[in-house]
């Protein structure tokens, strides 16, 4: 059953990558977002010299991570579902030999398969241009990684409505 879902994920992923520019555009889009945040915070730091005790580097790191991770979290299947309902494709989805839930879990795997490389690319490119502050302890680092793993099922079951 997992194999069928993976196949669905694969085909959905392929659909994304048919347009190779998709990958670059999404990545660029995210980086622009980072730049905007950083400009805003640089302006604030220039005015006040301080924001709640965080250094500008820490603030920049925070925003790079926010944008990086949100490109995984915000990626859901809710839009695909809404589309399918409106254009009638849902009929065919409901007639497939696996349940609607599993069908969309497969699609979700494809989405994530596309979103994660985008996130990684954003993180790498940003870390070239800006200094990223590392966590202060290993425990913090591990907890952070745990949260990222937990994001995946959460963002499937509780999609962000855009």
């Amino acid at each position, binding site marked *: 059953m997992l194999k069928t879902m993976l196949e669905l994920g694969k*085909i959905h992923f*392929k659909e994304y990558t048919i347009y190779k520019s998709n990958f670059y555009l999404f990545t660029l889009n995210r980086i622009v977002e980072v730049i905007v945040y950083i400009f805003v915070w640089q302006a604030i730091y220039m005015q006040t010299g301080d924001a709640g005790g965080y250094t500008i580097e820490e603030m920049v790191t925070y925003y790079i991570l926010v944008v990086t991770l949100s490109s995984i979290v915000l990626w859901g299947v809710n839009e695909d579902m809404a589309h399918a309902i409106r254009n*009638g494709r849902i*009929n*065919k989805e*409901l*007639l497939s*030999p696996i349940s609607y839930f599993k069908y969309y879990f497969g699609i979700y795997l494809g989405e994530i398969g596309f979103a994660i490389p985008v996130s990684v690319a954003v993180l790498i490119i940003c870390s070239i241009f800006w200094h990223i502050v590392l966590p202060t302890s290993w425990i913090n680092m591990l907890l952070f990684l745990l949260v990222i793993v937990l994001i995946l099922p959460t963002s499937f079951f509780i999609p962000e409505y855009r």
Partner: protein
Amino acid sequence: MSLIEVKNLTKTYKIIKKEDGLMGYFKNLIRPKYEEFKAVKNINFNIEEGELVGYIGENGAGKSTTIKMLTGLLTPTSGEIIIDGIIPYEKRIENNKKIGAVFGQKTQLWWDLPVIESFRLIKKMYKIPEGEYRKNLKNFTELLQLEDLLEKQVKNLSLGQKMRCEIAATFLHIPKIVYLDEPTIGLDVLVKENIRKFIKDINKEKKTTVILTTHDLKDIEDVCDRIILLDKGQIIYDYGKIEDIHMKEAELEDILKEIYRGAKIC
């Protein structure tokens, strides 16, 4: 027991009644008024394995509504449907494994990908054994002339090409029952003929039961061996054998026209 058993099947749609004006709009938001519309009224029929049934009637007669109930997409308001021993809307997935369906021009193929990718996914989803998949694909490619289409992106296919691929996709797992809701809509004569012949061939070879709705009487004459005629949600004609109609020495078209006008024959 028949393969498909339909007893006293009724479907009533609930429609929100629109009121005019801004006040009406807000009234509707708070307490919507519903109107009921009976699309299918108390119909009965049995279909045996291997039958080719033409399900026809005027626009809005309730054909698609019936097909949607048979496939398990819609739940009947009342009445019974038993398909190969199961109730389709209760055991949807189990039923889905045994059926195939085409709805007019809506495609199940993956729009941006080559046709063959959709076929491969179908193979995985229905767990079609490799050998059987190859055999069917080869057979269908020949019958529906798909050689040059398989590597093309679905979005680049013409309507007729798409429909041939769609039909192949629907039959690929050799379903026991296939529902075709207007499969020949908008197609040219040759493609129509091609598709009709395909349906007949598969039916002969695999005993696939086919229920087909159409407005093209040639579809009926060439493919079906039985017609069920629906009018305003009611079955007004279920003649069994299509030869019997021809025995009346009139063209099918004339007979249907007469029935559509409300005159009863029999």
